[in-house]
């Protein structure tokens, strides 16, 4: 089980800020594929990965990063602070 968090328009498209996901995915790409296959709203959120960023246990990571030992995955658009 993994905590999956969504922020900004990713959260709006999917319709929830976080959820617990049962997964066998070994990389972020595999987790994304699993989520996309669920429902149209996930497909809409993940259709363009170049517009998304991912953090594993609160650290920025790549989509091909392994998920072994990871407890929290977050998906969000490029950041716009400052």
């Amino acid at each position: 089980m993994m905590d999956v968090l969504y922020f900004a328009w990713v959260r709006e498209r999917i319709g929830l800020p976080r959820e617990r996901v049962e997964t066998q995915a070994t990389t972020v790409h595999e987790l994304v594929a699993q989520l996309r296959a669920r429902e149209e709203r996930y497909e809409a959120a993940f259709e363009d990965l170049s517009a998304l960023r991912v953090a594993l246990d609160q650290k920025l990571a790549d989509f091909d990063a392994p998920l072994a030992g990871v407890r929290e995955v977050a998906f969000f658009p490029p950041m716009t602070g400052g």
Partner: protein
Amino acid sequence: MHISVQEAPFDLGAASAEFAAGHKDMGAIVTFTGLVRDLPDDPLDAMEIEHYPGMTEKALQAIAQEARTRFGLGDVLVIHRYGRLLPGEMIMMVATAAPHRKDAFEGASFLMDYLKSRAPFWKRETTSSGAQWVASKDEDEAALTRW
């Protein structure tokens, strides 16, 4: 180092004065303040800032530590707000202290460049024509390559 992620407004004068006090070995303090900018063609009702509690503090801490090491800063201050803000309100500030001005300026510039595209904040602007997430700019990402 002082890092604060808060909803409440901050007092720029008081925060700057407090930061500047007690640094007898530092000859230069630079502060930068970011404000909510109104839109010329489509007046802004409000700006909402969302963040990732937990990761935000860690990311700011790491960026501040990197700035401190790289530019030999004596101290670093970062305050960043979230929630609903009105045009003209202060969003954030950074301050750097260094023995000489060059490192204080460069340290502040480095902090801002990294904070903009590596700290998990997202802005959404609300105008009379609706609400829109602010898109990141390619130039913000490109700004990181100069460091």
